[in-house]
Every structure is written in structure tokens, then in C-alpha cells.
């Protein structure tokens, strides 16, 4: 069977003293959809990019453009392409497995790009052995090699009948989750609130296949552009209503479809905003959910 496209990389994978020839194929592509052009607001013409000397303002030829590292204000060291290349270790084209890590132990935030890792030439036996061994032990392999002019760490994991090698971001490219979330107060939700939220999850639980997802943006943008061309004013949209802490429990109950009447004591005293709340509740539910068809006649009856 012909493999579509050309391999991004060909080399070997080495675990322990075993070496098997393999190839990497990019597993993903990026698709661009809507594109705007940059235009000059003044003239309505398109603009084009030019590279100029910051001091003289004159265009700089491609061959005169070199890499410079800024030491401090306006002081640079020039690095020639050969010097940058010399910083990269010589490639022996071998993905060396450094360690195996449990699949549950993997921090996905490091994931960069996935590649299909396939056996090349006659290496299928060792390949199948590594795949099945990792599958059995529920582990992935951490391996390193020179890829795309950089020493990269990849995570190799079984996928269907093959293996996927995902390049990992370097340590300095990933923000610490702990740091990012440190301002969030320690709140552990328990009791009724947690039960209600779990109930809502149960209602909304299902399956999802990413390949059936449709991007509605283009259509919505087309509408917007049409409205603008027809000279209509574009609607300003009001921000959604945020649930206040004292309304949270009630919002959860309504979302879970639990009757507020099930808790008779406290409601009379203060909580319920508009007293007799069967009507209120069903109205609120109707506004938010799609049970409109059923509740509309009922509501009309009450209203009259």
C-alpha cells in the first residue's frame, strides 16, 4: 500500500541494544480558512511588506540579512548560519529511548506535534515488539534525536496498529500550571452542589468525534459582512448574566431539573426571588433550554 506523502524523517529507533529502522510522517496539517488582507485604510489599497534598515530606512537585500542577538540596547552579536548550525549536535539519525513512563504520568501540556512513526525497510519485527510491549505495560517511551535542526525529545506511544511520536515542548516553553493557577482560592465543592453538578454531567454525557465538528465562524462572518455592506448597524451584544454566589445553588437545581419545591423549609423565608416558583422556574428553564415546545403552552395557561 502506498503511503501518502513523503517521510519527514528517516532513521532508527533504539531501545536497549535493539535498533529498528523507522520513518516519521507528519500526522497533521493546518488548514486556513478565512483570510483577510491588510489594506491601507486611507487609500483602500493592499499593502506589501518591505524589509528596511532601521537607521537608514533603505531596503535590505536578502543576502545582507543576518541573525543578531541583542546584548543590550542596540548592541548585537552577529551569528552566522554556520555558527548556529554548529550548536546542533551531529545527527546519527537515531531516536534513543531514554526511559519509559506510565501513560497516566504524562503531562500533556508539553505536547507539540504528532507524527506517525512507521517501520521502514525490514524493521517490522522489532517495531511490533516495542509497540506490543509498551501497550501491554501501558507506558510510553521518551526518546531523543536531532529533528529539524534541533535536539528534540519525543514521546512515543501506541496508536491503533502503529506508534505516534509527539514532539515535546522544551521545559522553558511551558508555563507552570501551579504558577498560573496560584491566585485561584482553594475551594472544594461538596454536598448538594457537587451532587447537582454531577447530575448535570450525567445528563450531558456522551461521545464526541472531532472530525464531525463544523466551524460556524465563516458563515457568521459572511452574515456580518453582508450586514455591513448593506449599511446596517452591527448589533452590540449584552454580556451574559453571571451567576452570583447566592444564586448558584438555585441555578444548579434548575439546570439539573430538580424541583425547588422538594426543599420546602427555607424557600418561604427568603431564597426564592418570586415566591411561587413553579411558574418562574419553568419560565427560566424555557428561556435557557430547548424544552420550549413543551413548556410554552403550559406557561401560557398559567399566565392567563
Amino acid at each position, binding site marked *: 500500500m502506498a503511503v501518502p506523502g513523503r517521510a519527514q524523517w528517516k532513521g532508527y529507533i533504539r531501545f536497549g541494544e535493539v535498533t529498528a529502522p523507522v520513518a516519521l510522517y507528519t500526522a497533521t496539517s493546518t488548514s486556513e480558512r478565512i483570510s483577510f488582507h491588510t489594506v491601507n485604510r486611507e*487609500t483602500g489599497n493592499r499593502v506589501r511588506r518591505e524589509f528596511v534598515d532601521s537607521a537608514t530606512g533603505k531596503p535590505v537585500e536578502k543576502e545582507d540579512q543576518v541573525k543578531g542577538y541583542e546584548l543590550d540596547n542596540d548592541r548585537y552579536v552577529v551569528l552566522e548560519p554556520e555558527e548556529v548550525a554548529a550548536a546542533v549536535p551531529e545527527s*546519527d539519525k537515531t531516536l534513543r529511548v531514554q526511559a519509559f*513512563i506510565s501513560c497516566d504520568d504524562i503531562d500533556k501540556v508539553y505536547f507539540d506535534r504528532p507524527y506517525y512513526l512507521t517501520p521502514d525497510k525490514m524493521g517490522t519485527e522489532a517495531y511490533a515488539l516495542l509497540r506490543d510491549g509498551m501497550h501491554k505495560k501501558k507506558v510510553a517511551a521518551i526518546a531523543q534525536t536531532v529533528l529539524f535542526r534541533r535536539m528534540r525529545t519525543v514521546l512515543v506511544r501506541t496508536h491503533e496498529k502503529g506508534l505516534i511520536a509527539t514532539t515535546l515542548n522544551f521545559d522553558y516553553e511551558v508555563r507552570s500550571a501551579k504558577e498560573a493557577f496560584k491566585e485561584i482560592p482553594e475551594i472544594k465543592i461538596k454536598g448538594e452542589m457537587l451532587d447537582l453538578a454531577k447530575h448535570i454531567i450525567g445528563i*450531558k454525557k456522551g461521545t464526541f468525534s472531532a472530525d464531525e465538528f463544523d466551524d460556524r465562524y465563516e458563515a457568521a462572518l459572511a452574515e456580518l459582512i453582508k450586514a455591513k455592506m448593506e449599511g446596517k448597524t452591527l448589533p452590540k451584544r449584552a454580556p451574559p448574566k453571571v451567576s452570583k454566589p447566592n444564586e448558584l445553588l438555585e441555578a444548579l437545581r434548575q439546570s439539573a431539573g430538580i424541583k425547588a419545591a422538594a426543599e420546602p423549609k427555607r424557600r418561604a423565608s427568603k431564597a426564592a426571588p418570586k415566591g411561587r416558583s413553579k411558574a418562574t422556574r419553568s419560565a427560566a428553564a424555557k428561556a435557557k433550554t430547548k424544552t420550549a415546545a413543551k413548556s410554552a403552552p403550559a406557561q401560557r395557561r398559567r399566565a392567563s
Partner: protein
Amino acid sequence: MAPPRPYWKGYLKLSLVTCPVSMMPATSESEKVRFHTLNRKTNNRVVSRYVDAETGKEVDEEDEAKGYERGENDFLVIEDEELESVALESARTIDIEKFVSRNTIEWVWLEKPHYLSPSDEVGHEAFSVVRDAMEAEKVVGISRLVLGRRERAVMLEPCGKGIVVWTLRYGDEVRKAENYFGDIGDGDNDPKLMSLVTSLIEERSKPWNPDMVQDPVQEKLKAIIESKRKSAKKGAKPKGKGKDEEPAYTGNVIDLMSALKKSLETKSGGKSRRRIN
């Protein structure tokens, strides 16, 4: 790391519960050794600027606008604020439509991670409810979200006190695995080999550690820059190393068996270093 600026602000919504949130990318380029482009002749920075395609004159930054091409060379200018009124709730609300069991979304779909936090005290509890319930039920949430002028499917996963939001790739962005793996056998492995390989895996298993993703090239570049800074000019070029020869691969079952055995020996005994051919 550079102080993270909120990259997106909006709302997180589960049914009738809504709270204000902010989001930032979980990855950052700010610590990477970055180069600028210089003009070799003058040593000045090279900067890019826009010129009007018709008049050739420089265009001020504030005059740069997004143009939708409604006819040939006929552009309708759309302002960023106007784009915000696009009629999609997902432009600013992450409304969780669905929950799925953890680990049912294949990793190949995961595109870019972001950290989601409550942005206002009013939403702390509501945010925590959504997070803790997902954690308790071992599920992830699925929603739509407009980012970068496209509507994306996103996956929400609790992470410590916060939530990680992954953009998911579109259906046409992931190549079909069977086109690549179709020829691979189902693995009729020799049980002896299997037992050797699983011992090897056990022996070399380690806990995850961020040290596994260090970047030696970046360290070298920093060293080169440092030495250049010191000896302002004397650009002694680092020499390339000798090439390693290409390794031979392990072919048949007998080779495999002896290579695996050797791997186990090398690790424990640490003597035989010989390369197998």
C-alpha cells in the same frame, strides 16, 4: 517567565451557571533565545514595514486595517470591534455542551493548551463546581470557542485548581492513521521476546520529569553568545564533531533475542558495550 497577559476573557457556562473567566496559552516563546535580523553592511536592525501596493508609500500602523476582498482589488474594511459582534455565542462564552469520559479523545486531536481561571471573585465558587464535578466524574467537557477568527472545538480538563482548555484539531487536519499503519502486522510476537521486552520496559521505567525536555542546543547558543560578548570580536568558530556512522539495525529473531538479553545485561552489569551488527 514574562508576566502572562490575559489572552482571552469571557465566560464559562454550564447550563444555567455562568462565571467570568480568563485564559492564557500554557506555552510561551518568551524564554527562547531569540534573534533579530541585522543588516550585515551597517549592523543596524532590519525592520519590516508596510507600503501601499499602489502608491509605494509607507503606511502608518494605525492606517493598517483588515480588508475583506469583495471584488477584485476592492476591499471592505472590517474593524476588530466589528468582528466582536459576530453572531456566535462561542465568541465569548465557553458553554459546555457535552461531557465525555477522560481519555476517549485521542491525543492526536489535541492542538494547543491554555490555562483557564476565574477572572472575578464572583465566579470562584461556580468555577470550582464545574472543575470538581468533572474531576469527580472522571470526564472532560466539550465546547465551542472562537479563537483567532475561527470557531474551534475545545476540550476542558481539570488541572489542580484550574482547568486546561485544549483546542482540538479539525477533522481535515488529522491524517488517517490507517494510511500509514495499514501494512503493519498485528504482532505475532514470540512469547520469549515479549517477556524480555517487558522486563526491559520495567527496568527502564521512570517517573515523568521536566528534565527530560531540556534543550542542549539553546544552552550551546547561550554559551556562544556569552563568549562573543566577552571577546567582542575574536570569533573562533566552534568546530563540528566527527560524524557517527549509521547504526546497523536489529534484523531477525535471533538478533532480537540476543540484543534484548544484552540490553538487560548492560543495564544491570554495565559491562558489554559492543554494538550489535
